[in-house]
């Protein structure tokens, strides 16, 4: 959907995303089209509500950037405190995942695997990849060859059939 109008107030969450969520939340329930449209608009309202409140809280704290704390306090003061536990959990999960990744990459450095060994492993992987690529390319080339051959055969038998049809009937050899 092109937002060529450039009007900020027309911003909404994509309808498809909302439809999907509604379907997952209320499977087997018929939801009227205008009701779906409403939910889309309610989303926008909710986001405005939360951001305005969080922004106010942020201004009071004399910080320039809205932080997760501000959002959480906004949810609490607007009566959506029940969401806080779950969103906090999800955020924590992400942070743990991000932390693990960072640890994993630094672990690689500190693992004590000498650089030469790492280089060797890397070369091995590259060589493997190159080989796979080459095999793939060869397969493709063979396929193309086969396709070209078949096309030739088809053309040949077609023209042979034409000749046989125009002249008198001759015994045809079985050409495999």
């Amino acid at each position: 959907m092109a937002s060529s109008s450039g009007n900020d107030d027309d911003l909404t969450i994509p309808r498809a995303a909302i439809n999907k969520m509604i379907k997952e939340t209320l499977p087997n329930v018929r939801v009227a089209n205008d009701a779906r449209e409403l939910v889309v608009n309610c989303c926008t309202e909710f986001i405005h509500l939360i951001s305005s409140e969080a922004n106010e809280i942020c201004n009071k704290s004399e910080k320039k950037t809205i932080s997760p704390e501000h959002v959480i306090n906004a949810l609490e003061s607007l009566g959506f405190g029940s969401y806080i536990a779950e969103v906090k959990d999800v955020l924590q999960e992400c942070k743990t995942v991000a932390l693990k990744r960072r640890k994993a990459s630094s672990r690689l450095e500190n693992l004590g695997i000498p650089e030469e060994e790492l280089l060797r492993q890397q070369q091995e992987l590259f060589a493997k990849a190159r080989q796979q690529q080459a095999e793939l390319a060869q397969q493709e080339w063979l396929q193309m060859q086969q396709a070209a051959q078949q096309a030739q055969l088809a053309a040949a038998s077609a023209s042979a059939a034409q000749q046989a049809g125009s002249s008198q009937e001759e015994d045809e050899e079985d050409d495999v």
Partner: protein
Amino acid sequence: MSGSKEEEKVPGRSTSLPMSRVKLIMKSSPDVSHINQDALFLTTKATELFVQHLAQYSFRKGCGGESNALGYSDLAKAAEESEPFHFLTDILPKKILARDYLRSLEERSEDSD
């Protein structure tokens, strides 16, 4: 689905609603300038919970029990009956009969006399 690929830039950060769009909506609020990435993620997740909450609540409290359907009136009812959802009454006015509205107008003008 467009938008979901962007979100995977940060691993483990998948959301059902596109964060980029949520950010645009947030920024269209007056005065909102900078939003921390985690705060944006939290807001997006909270909005997802809101959709689920609104849908479930409206369905349970509405007449969906009999007809297994969710309609405008169910949502409007939810907006009125649940306090956290009061902010929606502006965009989800409960439909009333014209004659009731006219009557209430009359009563109001009588009061102001």
